[in-house]
């Protein structure tokens, strides 16, 4: 598990928690105290190795730890109390599970003799969190505590990363026992393979070399694998000359400025990326999982292609889409194997076919699918993101988002050149993720520009974390595309439910500028395109947390879009959508899906 020497010494359970965190290299911990974790908080008070960030709600603690983890590649650490502390953390844990984010969450529990007694602030934490964690533990013996804590970190970061809960009863926190440091012993059952099968890699390279219409389709697995994976991906893509697209979770692994980049794919992906997915003859999927937002109709998904799938999680392979060459392994390792095999083979690619494929891709690109009508009287949300991107270039920028239309516009119009710069809730789609995630990112990168691109509805779900930002002088920028609607809900109601906007309009929104001031932050408002640039520049210049109330067009929809139940080559485009198209966009069968 690690290489430090084993050593034993007596200490209390609470001291072991702090010692184990220090031994695991944790520097920050996001938490909220309560009765069942007081012994650990008492130890926190008496040391200065680990800095505790006091959040305002336990969901925020987990999202902050996720932002911290995703922007650093380290394991994020959470400390919450029993009962409501644990149940409040469940949304964050599920989010981390769906997006494969390494988090260790320590929960307090009522004393061992009261477990099962319906004691005050008792809940069955391991029962509740079993399906929303990668693994969890209830520690009933103080002498097992240090081993369990080290194992929790190992499980969280190894293989396909994920959240791990360690539930520690209060009597175990007080009890004295033997602390064991890190050991280099192998885990008895959990040892994911990182190296791909050489024969499968050779077959994959063979298939790639023979391709006439190849495409790389990559995802969050590249980011999780670490910066080396992104570098190797760039090498392989340049070496082959093939086009590349990525999922929402994988943005930044390959630079958006590169000429081989087609943009994001999927439900709100680009016309060129989705058509390339549909028409390619060899698909090279690396660290992505054929999610239903990506595939659309599975029986019409990329019908003419042979598929290669590289994934560290064997169960992601052949789950939704049957592939031809499965490779189980870590992205960085397998990419290196592919590069080695490609270089050894020196393949003669079909240059004529590839040139013709690129001409086709260029024709799709020329469709300019992200085009929207700019206006002078009102800020279009797409324009706001374009200006935000333009004015933050050259800064050391990290972006988080909430969930909805603004998230898709951010993915489409903000361009990422590096991994670990983009933090968003992809799998679970958690409104309220972005603000606390920004807190976590800013804790890890105190001097960087950290922006939460938000919607006014999402951000209100975790708004209280502005108080955390104020307490720790975290100058996060909350850039709200305020259209007064739950925009994506409204868009679906327009497409599916005859424009009956049932409860998707938020009347009586707070005054976000005054709200900022109430949180000891700076409030900025922009209502006209002409004042947008100066307002964004002011936001960047302020060295305090900012809530930016960007009033945007209330009725803009997010295009292009693959309507639910359709194939990749049936996209709705923003500039040619008529009333009739909207009426007919989604089939009866599609209506039952989200």
């Amino acid at each position, binding site marked *: 598990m690690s290489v430090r020497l084993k050593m034993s010494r007596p200490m209390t359970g609470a001291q072991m928690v702090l010692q184990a965190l220090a031994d695991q290299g944790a520097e920050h911990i996001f938490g909220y105290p309560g009765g069942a974790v007081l012994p650990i908080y008492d130890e926190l008070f008496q040391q200065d190795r680990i800095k505790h960030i006091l959040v305002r709600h336990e969901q925020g603690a987990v999202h902050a730890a996720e932002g911290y983890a995703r922007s650093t590649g380290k394991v994020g650490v959470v400390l919450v109390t029993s009962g409501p502390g644990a149940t409040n953390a469940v949304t964050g844990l599920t989010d981390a599970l769906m997006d494969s984010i390494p988090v260790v969450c320590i929960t307090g529990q009522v004393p061992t003799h009261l477990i099962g007694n319906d004691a005050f602030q008792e809940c069955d934490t391991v029962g509740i969190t079993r399906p929303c964690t990668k693994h969890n533990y209830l520690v009933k013996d103080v002498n097992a505590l240090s081993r369990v804590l080290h194992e929790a970190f190992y499980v969280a970061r190894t293989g396909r990363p994920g959240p791990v809960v360690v539930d520690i009863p209060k009597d175990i926190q007080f009890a004295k026992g033997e602390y064991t440091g890190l050991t280099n012993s192998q885990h008895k059952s959990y040892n994911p393979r990182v190296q791909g099968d050489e024969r499968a890699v050779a077959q994959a390279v063979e298939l790639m070399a023979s391709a006439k219409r190849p495409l790389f389709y990559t995802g969050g697995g590249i980011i999780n694998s670490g910066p080396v994976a992104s570098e190797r991906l760039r090498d392989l893509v340049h070496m082959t000359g093939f086009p590349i697209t990525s999922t929402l979770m994988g943005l930044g692994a390959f630079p958006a400025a590169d000429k081989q980049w087609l943009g994001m794919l999927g439900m709100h992906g680009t016309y060129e990326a989705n058509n390339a997915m549909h028409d390619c003859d060899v698909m090279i999927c690396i660290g992505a999982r054929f999610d239903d937002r990506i595939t659309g*109709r599975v*029986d019409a998904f990329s019908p003419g292609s042979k598929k290669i799938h590289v994934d560290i999680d064997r169960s992601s392979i*052949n789950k939704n889409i049957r592939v031809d060459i499965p490779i189980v392994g870590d992205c960085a390792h397998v990419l290196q194997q592919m590069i080695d095999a490609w270089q050894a083979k020196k393949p003669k690619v079909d240059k004529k076919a590839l040139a013709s494929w690129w001409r086709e891709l260029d024709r799709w690109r020329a469709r300019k699918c992200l085009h929207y009508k700019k206006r002078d009287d009102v800020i279009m949300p797409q324009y706001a993101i374009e200006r935000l991107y333009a004015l933050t270039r050259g800064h050391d920028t990290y972006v988080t988002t909430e969930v909805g239309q603004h998230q898709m516009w951010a993915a489409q119009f903000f361009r990422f050149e590096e991994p670990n710069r983009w933090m968003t809730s992809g799998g679970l789609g958690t409104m309220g993720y972005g603000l606390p995630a920004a807190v976590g990112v800013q804790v890890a990168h105190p001097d960087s520009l950290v922006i939460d691109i938000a919607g006014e509805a999402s951000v209100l779900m975790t708004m209280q974390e502005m108080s955390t930002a104020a307490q720790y002088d975290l100058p996060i920028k909350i850039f709200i595309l305020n259209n007064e609607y739950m925009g994506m809900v409204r868009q679906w109601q327009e497409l599916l439910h005859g424009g009956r906007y049932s409860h998707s309009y938020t009347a009586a929104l707070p005054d976000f500028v005054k709200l900022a001031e109430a949180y000891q932050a700076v409030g900025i408002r922009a209502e006209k395109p002409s004042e947008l640039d100066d307002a964004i520049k002011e936001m960047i210049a302020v060295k305090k947390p900012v809530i930016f109330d960007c009033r945007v067009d209330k009725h803009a929809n997010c295009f292009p879009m693959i309507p639910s139940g359709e194939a990749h080559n049936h996209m709705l485009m923003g500039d040619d959508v008529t009333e009739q198209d909207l009426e007919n966009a989604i089939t009866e069968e599609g209506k039952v899906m989200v």
Partner: protein
Amino acid sequence: MSTQPGSAYSLDTREEKPETHTMTVLVDNEPGVLARVIGLFSGRGYNIDSLTVSETEHEAHLSRITIVTSGPPMVIEQIQHQLERLVPIHSVTDLTVLGNPLERELAMIKVAGKGDKHAKAQAIAEEFQAHTIDSSAGHFIFEITGEQSKIERFISRLQPLGLVEVARTGLAAISRGAERM
């Protein structure tokens, strides 16, 4: 726009016939491990036709779970790999894929009846090589071990003779030959 019916969810389009598979799973015998396995099946909508569990290697604290499940081939493959992801699981073997595993179940069957029925029940038990483990002038409890089909046949033969209740262990299975799974 196309008006073809379609679904974003792959299960809808699967038309493969369901198959029945027997899997054997080696796990750490620790609290909650069975809940993890069962929770995986219920959470992901997989079938459990039979499940047995017992510690089989005391020194290593290893338990062996035998699961009989059914589903289309792609789902069966998923079940195996989803189980393999669980941290305390050491190995998952699809015995049906290995081919022709030895499968046995034990049943205890209570039959109550007098006179002619009593005698007939005893005769059927002898035919099936079942043991009598409890008896009186008015009842028998038989113990029978064998393949599930044999136990089913035995029970159906006893049905008209005053069948009271049946306790079954579920299936235990092992692969043929000298190799460890």
